């Protein structure tokens, strides 16, 4: 499973609807499209837990799309 697929699995895990997950363009910002202000921190928490990383305040504001998350995760590993 590639990183984007794993991230989409995490989206499902925090309760994002299947149709929204499948329709998410990895290049587009997640906020306001696939996630609201409640989902976003839950997604960050799920990513931190899955990959054993800590996403600091400053980085979290740069991680806007699934591609951003993928690049961050791959850079961190």
């Amino acid at each position, binding site marked *: 499973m590639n990183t984007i697929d794993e991230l989409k699995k995490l989206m499902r895990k925090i309760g994002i609807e299947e149709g929204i997950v499948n329709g998410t363009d990895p290049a587009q*910002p997640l906020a306001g499209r696939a996630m*609201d202000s*409640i989902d976003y921190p*839950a997604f960050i928490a799920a990513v931190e837990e899955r990959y054993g990383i800590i996403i600091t305040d400053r980085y979290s504001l740069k991680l*806007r799309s699934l591609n951003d998350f993928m690049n961050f995760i791959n850079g961190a590993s």
Partner: protein
Amino acid sequence: MSRSNAAVELLSRNLELHPDKTAYFCGERALSYRELDNASRHFARLLQKKGIAPGERVMIVLSDCFAFPAAFLGCLLSGAVAVAAGAPLREEDLTYIIKDCGARLLVSHGELGVSRSIIGDKVMAILCNYDGPAEDSNSCDQVSDPYHPSADDFAYMLYSSGSTGQPKGVPHRHKSLLLPGDLIGRELLGITSDDVIFSSSKLSFAYGLINSLTFPLRFGATAILHPGKPEPRAILDIIGRRKPSIFFSVPTIFTQIILSCAQRQLQLPMRLCCSAGEALPAAVFEEWQRLTGLEILDGIGSTEMAYHFISNIPGQAVAGSAGRLVPGYLTLLVDDNGDIVPSGSEGSLLVSGDTSSPFYWNLPDKSAETMLPDGFIRTGDVFVERNGFFYHRGRSDDMIKAGAHWVSPVTVEDALRSHPAVADCAVAAVTVGTLIKPGAFVVLTPGYERTPGLAQELRAHLMARLPDYMCPVRFRFMGELPRTQTGKIQRFRLRELDAYQSPA
């Protein structure tokens, strides 16, 4: 005509100066100052016809639309006390507030589904559409002689979440509605009749009420009302169409707008951006400034004080600071013994000023604990002051301020314990992606295993029982919870644990 009735103060000057100027935009529609004055006086008359006497509480559960200011000001014109409660209230909170404030009349939208079982047979209702009351809408009957309040009469009451989960009624006098206009609107923000004001925080909150009612009406400006959820795309759409000069919001919304932006730069029409409700992280301040070229003026206030008493000022905002003391207020930072701490040391914040609420409704013990005999109010916030700037350091109680909402850990813990997998639990503030959110620490019932699926199940369990903002964003499973010798949960240790423990 009385000049001490806040509604008269806010309406009459605009009616004389520019009756046809737009007071409010909502969606594609506009409401002039003349129409607002008429609607408010009509509403006041409607209250009189319903037999509502001066001093009686009238509960307003409306979204941000033309009906809200008309109903609110109508209450004040008739002498009734407007009890503004947020539309997304839980049924049990609504039931509690109606009973606690003793309202005989509820003003709400039909679609809110306020059922007869909640309000009971003794409570009358006025159902409104976005423009005003659906009943008697064609009547020209209006109050011509507004109520003349005494200095002690209450004008409005807001409900603030309590540490035990029960909302606390916070009554305010007429001056509490007017003074923030002068002390902050005029003196700090320089609001004039040329301004177009947009607040993403709703009128039923202290912050939104002053932003969208006092500020526009005090200065003959125009405000934009948005009845829907404050989602970033809707907000950016409104900003693009209406071009506000001042935008009031909260850190969660600023963060969501930043995160929703695909471009490197965002051109916005505002001259001022203001934040309150929770401490604005320095990272959000800096990223917003990089993205838009605008600073965010953070401030801190409380429902008990009606509005801000510490605020940054335009051109001199400091990232990570709530700002300086607003002239007209007094603050003290004290230690556990009540002694004043030196500059640079943490202390519990006490505040005093002319907008302070005298007590909590029907809560004499809590009032005595919070509203001190010397006129100071305990805010429950811990601050440090350096060179005149105040920096938020947390709460002295266990309450969590998440997305401008108060979250009582007790309420979330009660809901969590109703799941059979939960043997014991505690809820504490955790920081995720710059923002403070509730986090859950769970001891499992024997036979249940720590799996990601179980965390998902617990989250779904809470989402079905609590408002979204109360639901923990992170679940940590533990063998036992840290407790004091007397058995009290040590939430500060949970916060430390979350901050320093790498995710599993």
